[in-house]
């Protein structure tokens, strides 16, 4: 047991940190540190900078453009990016459909789809959730009917993040309605420019537009766009979902936000008082810092266990903690921001009024309530925290 980072790992951290410092546009960093979302252009710009460095698909196999980094280095890279903060790599390509394609796809699919993911020349979105398939993800109702060398797809996907930007969508579609729920699903890659696709924005309560409904009306999809075998799509979906072990806790994001809170808390507010001098706030801040430190160690334990090949085939109890505590702590940091801002949580974003006046209250205040509202999602998506508790109870505790 060696609980320190090695010198090599520390060197690597410095290298990553220096690279980000030198190459991340300050405009983007500033935007993110205020709790605002990265724009499409920001993400594309940063991904291409990383691509040039060879860092845009770090977990992929080396022969496909991966870095060959150890799990710990992957973690350090991820954390430094979140801590900067830099935009996150768009997960739908790099972490989701990319691994499915290089694991289960054929040679033509790999050649066609992987390079544009790496350079973000093509933007992907995820077509899993449906109105009737939320926590019960296998309840897919969208149909794909084989007609010659095409499938004809009809149905609806929802909660589709960034569908408005997307060139492609990967979809779970039901290809056999007679089979059991988890069987009879196929994994299709669908060009968003296909006739019959309509995207309807869903406005969320934070005032943002991240998610959409996607409607499929007699959409023709070449059979060549199916990954792997027909009716085996659920296996690929499970592979995809289990792939997102590290990073889901977003420890780096929460750390960056806590650092920001420390800074803000040390500045006197308009009333001349510093938040850090309010014992109730200070105690909650410290308690959140402690919980986050614990989660960070938990995350390192999971990485170390993975590297050591432990828990093969069965769930690591520590990994189950990542999603639950990680989402809770992201939310907790946004609540601390909400509490530090005081009455200036009230004014809504000036930009929505089309005016260009200075904000009311501190210049970071208008992003605070929207961030709080927005982050309610992290305990809902990616398997709600209720689903996570079911998983712990059943898979880990055997209840």
């Amino acid at each position: 047991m060696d609980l320190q980072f090695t010198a090599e790992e520390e060197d690597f951290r410095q290298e990553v940190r220096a690279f980000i410092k030198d190459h991340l546009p300050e405009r983007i960093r500033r935007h993110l540190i205020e709790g605002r979302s990265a724009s499409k252009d920001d993400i594309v710009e940063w991904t291409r900078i990383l691509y040039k460095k060879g860092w845009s698909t770090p977990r992929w196999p080396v022969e496909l453009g991966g870095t060959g980094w150890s799990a710990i280095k992957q973690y350090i890279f991820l954390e430094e990016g979140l801590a900067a903060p830099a935009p996150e790599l768009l997960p739908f390509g790099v972490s989701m459909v990319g691994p499915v394609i290089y694991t289960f796809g054929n040679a033509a699919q790999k050649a066609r789809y992987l390079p544009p993911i790496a350079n973000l020349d093509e933007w992907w979105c995820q077509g899993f959730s449906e109105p009737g398939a939320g926590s019960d993800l296998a309840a897919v109702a969208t149909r794909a009917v084989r007609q010659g060398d095409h499938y004809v797809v009809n149905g609806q996907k929802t909660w589709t993040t960034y569908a408005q930007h997307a060139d492609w969508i990967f979809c779970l579609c039901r290809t056999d309605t007679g089979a059991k729920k988890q069987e009879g699903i196929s994994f299709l890659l669908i060009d968003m420019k296909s006739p019959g696709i309509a995207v309807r924005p869903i406005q969320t309560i934070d005032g943002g537009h991240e998610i959409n409904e996607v409607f499929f009306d007699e959409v023709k999809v070449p059979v060549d766009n199916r990954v792997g075998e027909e009716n085996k799509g659920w296996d690929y979906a499970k592979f995809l979902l289990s792939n997102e072990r590290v990073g889901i806790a977003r420890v780096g994001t929460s750390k960056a936000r806590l650092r920001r809170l420390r800074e803000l808390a040390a500045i006197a507010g308009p009333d001349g008082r510093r938040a850090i001098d309010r014992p109730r706030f200070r105690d909650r801040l410290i308690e959140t810092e402690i919980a986050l430190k614990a989660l960070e160690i938990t995350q390192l334990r999971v990485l170390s266990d993975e590297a050591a090949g432990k828990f093969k085939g069965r769930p690591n109890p520590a990994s189950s903690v990542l999603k639950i505590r990680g989402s809770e702590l992201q939310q907790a940091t946004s609540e601390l921001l909400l509490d530090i801002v005081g009455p200036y949580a009230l004014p809504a974003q000036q930009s929505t009024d089309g005016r260009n006046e200075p904000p009311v209250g501190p210049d970071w205040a208008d992003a605070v309530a929207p961030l709080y509202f927005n982050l309610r999602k992290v305990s809902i998506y990616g398997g709600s925290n209720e689903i996570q508790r079911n998983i712990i109870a059943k898979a880990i505790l055997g209840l």
Partner: protein
Amino acid sequence: MNFDLNDEQRLLAESVSRLMMDRYDFNQRKIYTMSEEGFSPAMWQAYGELGLLALPFSEDDGGIGGGPVEIMIVMEEIGRALALEPYLPHIVMSASLLRHAASPEQRAHLLPGMMDGTRHIAPALGEMTGGYDLSHVRTTAREEGAGFRLDGAKTLVLHGGCAHAFLVSARLQGRPEDQQGIGLFVVEADDKGVSYRPYRTQDGQSAAELMLADVRVAKDMMLACGSDAAPAIARMADEAIAAIAAEAVGAIDSLVKGTVDYLKVRKQFGQVIGNFQALQHRAADMVVELEQARSMALYATMMSRHEDAIARAAAMSSAKVQINRSARLIAQACVQLHGGIGMTMEHPAGHYMKRLTMIEKTLGDSDFHMDRLASAAK
């Protein structure tokens, strides 16, 4: 002791409830939010027709003479409907200030327009440097000639954009943090030197920053309490906390009901999700929080006109802390139980969360009130 409504109170509750039912469904509300005012002037007239605008004013002043229980009844229905009209600032708060600080003549001058709905009068008390402390006043009022000259700025004036006049606190003497030396002035929105910047708030309502530059106010437009307005302002804040607590309870109650209804229809894994015991227990915990909030709203109502200012303030701070806690826990739980749909603008749950979050931030957040209680306890 008895918690029952009398016949008149029951009638009031029913008529406000019916009005909201008829004219405040979710889609109508959406239309109101998109209007220029950010609420429905027609509804304001309807409030007037029901007598709600005259409710808190005494019969001597031509009002209805409703007390805290009546205000509680109205505010709870407003909360339930997520109504957008400026009843809290322009009626509850302004009426309280005028009741405690104005002369009968001043009231005779100001009230008729408020009661018939033609004039909105907004309290403008908070300042950027004061946080939630309304007795912190830097805006100055200097005697000049036959009146006063006001200079300064007021912040977060609730529904300030549509106000015809403001009740402005300004300092006649002393330092910004002094309790003594504060006067209250009626400032017309179109007075020279008055400018304001209205904006929307996160919950779809609105507020404004008010700037006063060399604004002349006639002597009789200083309220009758003279340079000792702090007690009236404190009373107003306490009455307003009772009112907003009732609004919060109405909103929470409606949100919990909607969530429980959703649990009964939303199916996953082949059954309604309300069958899942973990969600049942979460819903049960919401009931516990709701009932605790309801009790503290009642307590606030009961104590809001208590004569002992220290006991009253302690009660109000206690109530606000409980309300803030229940509002946050329940809003979070309800959105969680709805899943994604609860985060969309298309569904009421998120709108309740937004209003409840802003209620937390209005009239003192929990840190402010805990500080007040802690200093009182020393």
